């Protein structure tokens, strides 16, 4: 047997082994690898890399590019490899540095085109980062709301005088609000304001938590809402505490102030708030 024959034999054996392997997925020529992603970070590009054993017995490496959206909506690409075996595929961020909770990827195998695409096998799903390539096989698929999310400190809208604070969970995001901090400066109108935080689903309130201590005229008071805040009975200098409920909020849910006896000259600052965030489609 010469070298050429030996190489052919090795290829044939490899191809046969791939057919029997649990880490080889057969593509019949109509099947394609579909990459779907939901991203929230800017300038993120993903590399989809792996190995494919073609019908000719040649083992080929591949590297494809996929660009997620930045607004948590769906981005889809699909890759055609022809006939053969997909041996492995991994995904990593090549630009930007997304953290767990920011770019969620789903890899599956589909057949057909356009509106007639038929998913036929789910390979892997999970969050992608720039430091740890993950993929199939060997890594368990995860749901986008599994595990801890990414921590984000956000500056909200600074409302005009006489207007309440409102902040909304973005579309396709899930938040756990961990803390909110804002100040209210009351004008000279003599009345006792009481600040509450209301949580709703975009329409119907399901929680309203009052600060329990009123604020008189011509004062600036800072309000801090957190999961661990003590229920205070008396004013603490210029700080007030509000205890947040440990609830998860989906896209469209809101938290907002509701102020008893608010007048046109009362002025809130922009809220600063800390959230744990996931992608949620």
């Amino acid at each position: 047997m010469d070298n050429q024959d030996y190489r052919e034999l090795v290829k044939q054996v490899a191809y046969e082994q791939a057919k029997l392997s649990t880490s080889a997925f057969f593509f019949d020529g109509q099947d394609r690898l579909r990459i779907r992603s939901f991203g929230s970070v800017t300038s993120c590009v993903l590399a989809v890399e792996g190995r494919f054993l073609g019908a000719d017995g040649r083992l080929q490496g591949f590297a494809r590019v996929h660009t997620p959206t930045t607004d948590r909506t769906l981005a889809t690409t699909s890759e055609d490899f022809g006939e053969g075996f997909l041996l492995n595929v991994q995904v990593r961020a090549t630009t930007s540095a997304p953290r767990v909770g920011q770019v969620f990827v789903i890899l599956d195998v589909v057949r057909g085109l356009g509106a007639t695409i038929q998913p036929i096998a789910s390979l892997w799903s999970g969050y992608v980062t720039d430091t740890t390539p993950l993929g199939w096989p060997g890594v368990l698929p995860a749901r986008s709301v599994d595990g801890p999310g990414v921590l984000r400190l956000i500056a909200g809208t600074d409302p005009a005088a006489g207007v309440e604070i409102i902040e909304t969970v973005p579309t396709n995001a899930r938040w756990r609000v961990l803390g909110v901090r804002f100040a209210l400066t009351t004008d000279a109108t003599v009345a006792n304001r009481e600040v509450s935080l209301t949580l709703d689903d975009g329409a119907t309130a399901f929680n309203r938590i009052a600060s329990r201590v009123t604020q008189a005229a011509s004062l600036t008071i800072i309000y801090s809402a957190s999961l661990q805040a003590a229920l205070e009975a008396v004013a603490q200098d210029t700080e007030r505490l509000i205890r947040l409920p440990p609830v998860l909020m989906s896209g469209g849910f809101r938290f907002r102030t509701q102020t008893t006896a608010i007048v046109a000259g009362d002025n809130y600052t922009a809220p600063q708030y800390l959230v744990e965030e996931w992608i949620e489609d």
Partner: protein
Amino acid sequence: MKVQCVACLGIYDTGAADGIGYYHVCPLLSDAEVGRALGLADNSALWTKAQRDQVDAAPRVRAGARDENIDPAKADAAAATGARKAAVFDPTSLQKSPGAGARPV
């Protein structure tokens, strides 16, 4: 970029400090704004019960209210038609409601 909402006059950055997009939503009308629109005294402590009831019953949706959050139906349609991949695609076209708009400050 810092902008001001034309409807509620709130001021905000279009991107959060971590570079992720911020989606402004106009607040509901406050008691103070409703009272003013109804011609009541600024100080709500001076309102009669009838006036209080009038405020409570008033609609709270602000004229020209803006909701910059992505409308999933618009996003799906843009993806299906390929509009999203166009070189001149305007992402603000996916907003739930541009309302009265926003201007740079």
